[in-house]
C-alpha cells in the first residue's frame, strides 16, 4: 500500500508539473514593436541645465556592435536623428554652433547593437568612450570622459540608440574631465526605423523637462 501511495503521488506531481508548463501566457507575444521599446533618460542632478547656452552635435552616429567599434554611419535614420535633436534643442533654448566655436554642450549619437544572447553591459560602452569619440573633435584633446550612469546587463539580442549630452563648458574646471550630464537611450524592436525617429527623440525629451536653457 505504501509503495502504491508513493508511486501514485509521484505520478500525480509529474502530471501536475507537465500540465502547468503549457498554461503560462507569454507576455512578449502580447507586445507590438512600439510596446517593446523603452526610453531611458538619466541626468546629472548637480548640473544646471539653464547655465548652458550653446551646443554642437556630432555629424554622424557611431556603430558599436558586441562591444566592438564598427565605424561611423550617416544614413537617412541618422540624418533624421541629428535633425530632430537640433530642432528640439533649439526649441529648448539652446543655440546651435560649430564644434570649433567652443560650445557649452556636445551631443554624441551612438547605435549600440548586441547580436549575442549573452550578458552585455553598457558599462563597456562607457569604458571605451574615449576611444569612440575623440575629445579633440570638440576642442578638448587629452581630456577624459566621465559617466555616472550604468544601465545594467541584459541577456537578449537588442539594439539601442544612445544620445549623450556632454558638458564641455566645465570640462577644464572638472579636472580635464568631460561629464555626460544627460543620457538618452531608446531600446527595443525597430529602434533604427526611420518612422520612429520623431517618437524616440520627442519621448526622451518629454520625460526630461528640466533639459532647457530658459
Amino acid at each position, binding site marked *: 500500500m505504501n509503495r502504491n*501511495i508513493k508511486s501514485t503521488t509521484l505520478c500525480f506531481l509529474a502530471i501536475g508539473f507537465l500540465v502547468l508548463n503549457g498554461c503560462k501566457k507569454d507576455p*512578449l507575444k502580447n507586445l507590438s514593436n512600439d510596446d517593446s521599446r*523603452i526610453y531611458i533618460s*538619466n541626468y546629472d542632478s548637480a548640473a544646471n541645465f539653464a547655465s548652458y547656452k550653446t551646443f554642437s552635435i556630432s555629424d554622424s552616429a557611431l556603430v558599436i556592435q558586441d562591444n566592438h567599434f564598427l565605424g561611423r554611419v550617416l544614413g537617412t535614420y541618422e540624418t533624421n536623428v541629428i535633425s530632430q535633436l537640433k530642432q528640439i534643442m533649439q526649441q529648448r533654448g539652446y543655440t546651435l554652433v560649430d564644434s570649433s566655436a567652443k560650445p557649452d554642450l556636445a551631443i554624441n549619437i551612438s547605435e549600440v547593437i548586441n547580436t549575442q544572447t549573452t550578458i552585455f553591459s553598457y558599462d563597456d560602452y562607457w569604458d571605451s568612450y574615449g576611444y569612440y569619440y575623440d575629445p579633440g573633435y570638440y576642442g578638448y584633446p587629452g581630456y577624459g570622459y566621465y559617466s555616472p550612469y550604468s544601465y545594467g546587463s541584459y541577456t537578449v539580442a537588442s539594439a539601442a540608440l544612445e544620445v549623450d549630452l556632454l558638458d564641455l563648458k566645465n570640462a577644464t574646471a572638472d579636472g580635464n574631465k568631460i561629464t555626460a550630464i544627460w543620457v538618452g537611450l531608446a*531600446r527595443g524592436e525597430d529602434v533604427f526605423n526611420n518612422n520612429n525617429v520623431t517618437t524616440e527623440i520627442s519621448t526622451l525629451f518629454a520625460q526630461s523637462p528640466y533639459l532647457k536653457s530658459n
Partner: protein
Amino acid sequence: MKSLSKFIIVITVVLFANNSVKAQNGLEMNVNYNVGLPTAGSKDYVTKPSFRGFTGSLDYAITSQLRVGLGIGFNDYYQKYPRQVYNGSDGAISAVLSNSIQQTPLIAHINYTITKTGFIRPYVGAGAGVNFISFDQYLGEFDNPSTKAKAIVQGEAGVFIPVSRYSSTAVKIGGTYNFAPFNEFGTSNLNSWGVQAGIRFPLH
C-alpha cells in the same frame, strides 16, 4: 489551456469508469479548474483574475469524513499596463509594463466533510506548504525574471455533491484563501482567493 482541458477530460472518463467502486477508505484524487483572484499585496502587480489555473490533490480517506493529502496548484497571472513614464531620482523610463506571475503551491492538507449524508455535503479544510513563485516584470521587451520558494498557508471551504450513493465520487465546488508571504519587489505578499470546481474520485 488545451493540455489542461485534455487532462480534465481524461480524468472524467476514468471517474465514470470507477462508478462501481463503493465508498470506502483509501486513495482519492481531486482535480479542479481554479480561478485565482488577486488580493492584498498581489494587487500591486496584477488586478485581473487568473483564468489559467488548476488545483489537484491526492488524498487518503482516513474515515468517510476526514481526509489528508498532498495538493498541487497552478495559476498564471498576467497584466499589461499602457505606456507611461516612471520617474526615478536621477532619471525616468518610459515603458509599457507587463507583470507575469506564476504560483505553484505544493500543499499538505487536511479536509473534513461536515455531513456524512445528503445531496450536498459541506467541507472545510486547511493546509500549508511551499509556494513556488515565478515573478517576471517586463519593461517593454526587457524582463527581470526571478524565482522564489516561499511558505504558503491555505484555508478552504465548499461543498461536495456525490454523484452516486455507492461511490465516494463527487463534484466539488469550493473556494480557498491563500496566505502567500512574498516580501520581494516591494510587496509583502501575493495573497489570493481561489474559486474552484472539479471532481473527486477514488483510485484503485
